[in-house]
């Protein structure tokens, strides 16, 4: 770890010492996380898991805890696509009940009121989660009872900070679906200026439950987004995730999924649109710990300018997880000479009766396809837009939620409008 980054880590540790008495939840879990963080700090590129992503830019900014004056962040609510249903609003990491609409028929609370720090608290392999466990003050606790179809819930996270007064917040979200429960969770993160958003979501999916998770990460292009999702799936549960990453200066989205019950199914679709000097990393570790599970990962990177896209995906199949079907597809489209993509699709297999495969492709737009469109009178810029949209369509069009789909579609459109590609 560089000296500068060490300083940032020490700042967070000092913050913990100051806040510890008032932090909600198990003091013991907090202490464990704090000592793990103190021992290890931020990972650097010598850590295999962070080989392609250097957190060094965090040291360019000096962070402070949000002072409660979140009006600038709240004002951004106007940018969130309108919808009618229940909605939870967080501004700089703090739950704002007055701007939220609580659902009926299932339980929602704030983490500050009902802290739960059970899951992967001091897991060494997830240092960002460790940091969150140390500092989390708020978040959403969502619990859907057995057999209830909870419909759609929107989770909005707004961030705002200025270069001189950058804030950092570490929301802790918890989703619990009892047996047979269903939920469509639409997560939207956006912001303005400089800040660090380090959310952790822990989701526990009961037998035959189903979580549809659509996420738009459209943070400020000067902000940092380091997020971790930990999902545990019981027998025949389904997790279906779709996310679009189009914001943040430095983004790392970790997905840790454990298939713990037989016949569970996980699908993860991610697209990253990056330009300028931005860096975004998708790291997924799917562990098959029970027989008959299936997992599908599809990750697409569209890169222009001097952007860097990273995909690290691992399918790990335990000895007991016979009849596992694992698939991983990673595609990257490089639209400029200086963009860069790094990918590491990994299989770790200890069971013999399995079907696991991965594929990866990296390339530019096909000149023949471009020529086809141009020869039919489509201007170059539009032709490129059509081809990029087609590249992403595969993922977005399959979202089985109309509003969620339109949120991502509109985000792709406006991203494209703003960039001279």
């Amino acid at each position, binding site marked *: 770890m560089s000296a500068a980054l060490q300083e940032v880590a020490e700042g967070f540790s000092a913050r913990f010492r100051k806040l510890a008495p008032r932090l909600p939840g198990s003091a013991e879990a907090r202490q464990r996380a704090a000592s793990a963080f103190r021992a290890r700090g931020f990972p650097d590129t010598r850590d*295999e898991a962070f080989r392609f992503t250097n957190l060094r830019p965090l040291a360019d900014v000096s962070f402070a805890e949000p002072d409660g004056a979140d009006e600038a962040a709240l004002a951004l609510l106007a940018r969130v696509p309108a919808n009618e249903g229940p909605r939870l609003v967080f501004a700089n990491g703090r739950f704002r009940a007055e701007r939220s609409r609580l659902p009926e028929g299932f339980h929602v609370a704030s983490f500050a009121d009902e802290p739960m720090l059970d899951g992967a608290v001091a897991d060494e392999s997830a240092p960002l989660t460790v940091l969150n466990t140390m500092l989390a003050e708020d978040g959403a606790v969502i619990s859907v009872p057995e057999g209830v179809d909870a419909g759609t819930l929107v989770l909005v996270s707004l961030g705002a900070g200025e270069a001189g007064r950058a804030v950092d917040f570490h929301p802790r979200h918890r989703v619990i679906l009892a047996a047979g429960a269903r939920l469509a969770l639409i997560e939207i993160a956006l912001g303005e200026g400089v800040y660090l958003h380090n959310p952790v979501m822990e989701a526990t999916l009961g037998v035959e439950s189903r979580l549809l998770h659509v996420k738009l990460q459209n943070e400020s292009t000067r902000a940092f987004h380091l997020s971790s999702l930990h999902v545990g799936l019981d027998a025949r549960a389904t997790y279906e995730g779709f996310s679009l990453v189009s914001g943040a200066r430095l983004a790392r989205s970790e997905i840790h999924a454990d298939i713990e019950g037989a016949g569970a199914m996980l699908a993860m679709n991610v697209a990253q649109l990056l330009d300028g000097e931005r860096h975004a990393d998708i790291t997924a570790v799917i562990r098959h710990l029970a027989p008959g599970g299936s997992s599908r990962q599809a990750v697409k990177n569209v890169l222009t300018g001097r952007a860097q896209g990273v995909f690290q995906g691992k399918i790990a199949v335990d*000895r007991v997880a*016979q009849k596992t079907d694992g698939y991983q597809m990673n595609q*990257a489209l*490089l*639209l*400029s*000479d*200086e*963009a*860069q*993509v*790094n*990918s*590491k*699709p*990994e*299989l*770790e*297999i*200890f*069971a*013999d*009766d*399995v*079907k*696991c*495969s*991965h*594929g*990866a*492709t*990296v*390339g*530019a737009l096909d000149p023949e396809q471009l020529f086809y469109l141009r020869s039919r009178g489509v201007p170059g810029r539009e032709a490129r837009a059509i081809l990029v949209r087609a590249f992403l369509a595969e993922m977005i069009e399959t979202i089985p939620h109309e509003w969620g789909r339109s949120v991502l579609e509109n985000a792709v459109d406006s991203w494209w409008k703003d960039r001279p590609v």
Partner: protein
Amino acid sequence: MPAVAETIETVSAVTEGGYKWGFETEIETELAPKGLSEETIRLISARKEEPEWLLAWRLKAFAAWQTMTEPHWARVAHPPIDYQDIHYYAAPRKKTPKSLAEVDPELLRTYEKLGIPLSERAALAGVEGGQVAVDAVFDSVSVATTFRETLAKAGVIFCPISEAVREHPELVRRYLGSVVPAGDNFFAALNSAVFTDGSFVFVPRGVRCPMELSTYFRINARSTGQFERTLIIAEDNAYVSYLEGCTAPMRDENQLHAAVVELVALNEAEIKYSTVQNWYPGDAEGRGGIYNFVTKRGACRGRRSKISWTQVETGSAITWKYPSCILQGEGSHGAFYSVAVTNNHQQADTGTKMIHIGANTSSTIVSKGISAGRSNNTYRGLVRIMPKAANARNFTQCDSLLIGDKCGAHTVPYIESRNATARVEHEATTSKIAEDQLFYCRSRGLSEEDSVNLIVNGFCREVFKELPMEFAVEAQKLLAVSLEGSVG
């Protein structure tokens, strides 16, 4: 070879069983005292009557090695290696013979048992007009080289590297360490400090090497690590095919092997490097066996040059090996074809690196991993496209086959692209032997073991077809022996 004959061969190889090449030749060997120090290096250098510059180079490598730590990123586990408990020099006592007649008959018998066609008379029966030159490395000193004259007529230099140091110092000095620098990695640095022998090949401009060149390595004296150094240079428009084959006697102790192979291909030159590695893998309980930590790298320096690595890895307790290509010349091509078989407690972490530097460079990777017993088999590969490598192209295919539910198969590819015009494709699959294929073979009267062998051979065909014919046959037999006892 017709399929029927092939099957019979395979089956008979299976029934013979065990590690059939586990015998030890009794020849007096001269050992340097155990341990590694500047003195050991000076001793090796003195024994080999080396020039001052080479000694200086070795000492520099040794200094670098002392500052390095053993790498632990590979998926292999072994007890710590005591580098001071190894003899770094062993040589047959007798002087290097001038002809075959002078070679120790005991040694010749060993080679005969291994089926190495050392003499012209034995030159691969049945291969019409086929001649294979063997530079047999017996422990550390090359004891015989055949076909020197034919090669000399063509202008090809093929000799032990220690001889090349004496007779072609300008070539050795120019190319040695130019692909794998002395301080490249822990094991390469160790090799650079203490290498005792290996082969040197130089194919001059415009020459197509008239025969396949072949070196058989054997590890013989107890506790002598082998530190081979091979250097192959193909000048403009030259072509050479080089075969490396390994068998080792059975023994209890783990043995360290850290070889370095460097290839240099200039304009439009082509080097084919084929390996069948069948060192002692340890017994069924995982005792003993060779530790094989090898650095192999080829530099495609010239335009449209080609380097291809083909390997069949069935032996060794631990394999740590990544034959790589640095594709520098415009339009150069690198290829890696690999079959890695692990059984019992074997561990293999192998793959390749393709570094695309020049424009229009291309590379192909085909890797087949087979795990059985309690073994672990990892493919670890890197494809890197540098910013100037316009229109670079890579295709990678890694397939793994699992036999039994106590083994592991892992795939760890790294793909890094910094050029928009480059195209990189990667595919990997992991599965077990299909029930329907097995049923088909069984219903035609093949035993389960033979059926598995047949199917596994088919799985590896894409790689075997890249091997020279006589090697392909040996490879198929090895596969059968290696997988023995893994089914049923």
